[in-house]
C-alpha cells in the first residue's frame, strides 16, 4: 500500500505550529494563549511522530510522550497562575500584566 510522504506530515505539523504561534500573538485572553501554546507543542509532537514513522524508530514516539507530559505540566502551572491572576485583577486579559517595563 502507498504511504503518505513524510514531508506532508511535516508540512501539516508546521502549519499547526504556525497557527499556535499566531494564536499566541493575537490572543489577549490568557487562557487562549495557553491553548495556543498547547497547539504549538502538539504540533512539534506530531512532527516527531512523522519523523519516527519515516525511520521506523520508537525514539520519536517516546519524545511525543515526553512532550505530552511536558505540555500537561505547562498547563497545570499556567492555570494555577491564571487563577492567581484572576484573583488579583478580576480579568484574564494579559495586557494587565505590564507593570514592569524599561
Amino acid at each position, binding site marked *: 500500500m502507498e504511504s503518505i510522504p513524510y514531508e506532508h506530515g*511535516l508540512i501539516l505539523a508546521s502549519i499547526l505550529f504556525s497557527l*499556535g504561534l499566531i494564536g499566541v500573538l493575537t490572543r489577549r485572553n490568557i487562557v487562549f494563549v495557553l491553548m495556543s501554546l498547547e497547539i504549538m507543542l502538539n504540533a512539534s509532537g506530531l512532527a516527531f511522530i512523522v519523523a519516527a514513522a519515516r525511520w521506523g524508530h520508537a525514539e520519536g514516539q517516546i519524545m511525543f510522550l*515526553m512532550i505530552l507530559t511536558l505540555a500537561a505540566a505547562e498547563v497545570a502551572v499556567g492555570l494555577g497562575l491564571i487563577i492567581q491572576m484572576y484573583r488579583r485583577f478580576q480579568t484574564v486579559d494579559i495586557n494587565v500584566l505590564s507593570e514592569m517595563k524599561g
Partner: protein
Amino acid sequence: MNITLADLIPLQPLLIVTGTAVVTMLAVALKRSHGLTAGITVLGLLVATMVAAELMATANDQVTPLLIVDQYSLFFTVVVCAAAMFITILSYSYLAPLDDDKEEFYLLLGIATIGAVVMVSSNHFVSTVLGLETLSMSLYGMVAYPVHSAKAVKFPLEASVKYLVLSAAASGLLLFGMALVYAQTGTLAFADIASSAATAGMGTGFSVIGLLLISVGMAFKLSLAPFHMWTPDVYEGAPLPATSYLATIGKAAMFVVLLRFVVASNALAFESVVAVFSLLAVASILAGNLLALLQENLKRILAYSSIAHMGYLLIAIIASYDAEGAVSVEAVSFYLLAYVIMSLGAFAVVAALSSSDSEVDRVADYQGLFWRAPWLAAVFTAMLLSLAGIPLTVGFIGKFYLFFAGVEASLWLLLAALVLGSGIGLYYYLRIVYKMILPVPDSSALPNSAGSLGSHSVLALLLLLLIVLGVYPAPVMAIIESISTLI
C-alpha cells in the same frame, strides 16, 4: 540496553540531588520547618557537590544514550550544585520574613537543580528536553513563589506568566527544530547528527531550518538578542533567589548543552548558522550594554548585563569551530565558571541587603554604601569590576580567554563588538560603584543590619574564589584544559 548497577555510580550526584528533593518533600509533609528544609537542601547539595568532585578523578562513561557523565559534565555538576547551595543559603535569610509557607521553595530549588544536572550531562535531545523542562517548570514556580504574599513588593505573578508563556513558546520552537533535525537524520543523539549513516543527513531538506529553530530556542533560554526582552521583566519581578538561580545556573546549564550540541553536531559547518550566531552575538552585546546604560533598577541592569555576557560567550562558541580552536572551548568553560561566580556574587550582595518584603534594587539606594557597610560594598565593587573584566578578578581572566579565542579564530569583527560592548559596559558598572562611594544620604533605604551570617560567609567564599581565580587561576586552568578535550 538496560541500566546496570555500575551505571549508578557515575549517576550518584544526580541521584543525591534527586534524593535531596524527595527528602525535602517528605520533610515538608511531616513537619514544616524553614530551617530544617533549608538545612536538608544545603546538606544534600553539599554532598552532591563533593561526590561530583570526587568522581571527577575517575568517572567517564556514557550512562544510557541519554546521559554522558564525563569530567566535563561533572565539573559543571559541581558548579551547579555549589551554586544551588549558595542560593539556598541566600534564600534562607531572604525568605525569612515571608508571610507564607517557605519550605516548598527549597523543594522547587532542588528539582530545578535536578534539571540543571541532567542538562549539563546530556548529549541527547531527549535528556536535553527532560532537563530543560524540569528546570523551567520549577523556575516558573520559584519566580512566582511569593505570589500569595500581600507584602511581596514585586510582581512575581507578572514575571512568572511572561516567563511561562514565552519560554513555553521557545520550548515549542526547540522541539520543532529537533523534530525537523530528527526527521532528516533519524537520530536524537548529538554525536550521531553529524555522522548519521542514514540517508542524506544534515544540510539537506529542513535540517538547516531545524538547526536554526533549535538555535532560536536555545537563544531564547540564554536571552540572546533579539530574544532577550523577557529577561529584565522576569529578573525584576522574581524574588531575588529565583532571579539569581535563573541568571546563573539556568544560563550555565543551557550553555553547556549549547556547547555540546554545537560541537558534536558540527552545526557551525553551515555558513548560515555561523552567520546567525555572529548576528546573535553582536546584537546581544550591543543591546545588552546599551539597555543597561541608563537603567536605574539594579536587577534590570544585571539582567541586561547578563544578555551582554551571553553575547560574549557566544563569540567563543563561534570560535570553537575554528581548526586551531583549542582554547575556545576552555574559554567557554572558564567564562561560564567566572560568570556564575561573579553574577551570583552580585546578586548575593543585593540579596544580603534585601528580603522578600523589601528589595533594595534601585541604584540610588546604594548611595554611600561604601561608608556604611564597607564589607558589602567592597564585595559588590569587586563583583562589578569583575563583570567589567578588570584584573585581579576572575572576570579579567575570563575576558582574557574570550579575547584569546577570538584572536585564534581571527574573528576581528566580533572582537571589535566585544571591545565596544565592554567599553559601554564600564559605564554602568562604574556608575553603581560611584554611587556607593558617594557620601551617605540622610534618608537611605538600606537596612542597618544587613544579611545573615550565612549569606556573609557565602559572600566571603565567592570573593575568595573571585580573587584567587583572578590572581592564580593556574590549577583551574589546568583542570579546564584537560576536561575541555572531552567536548
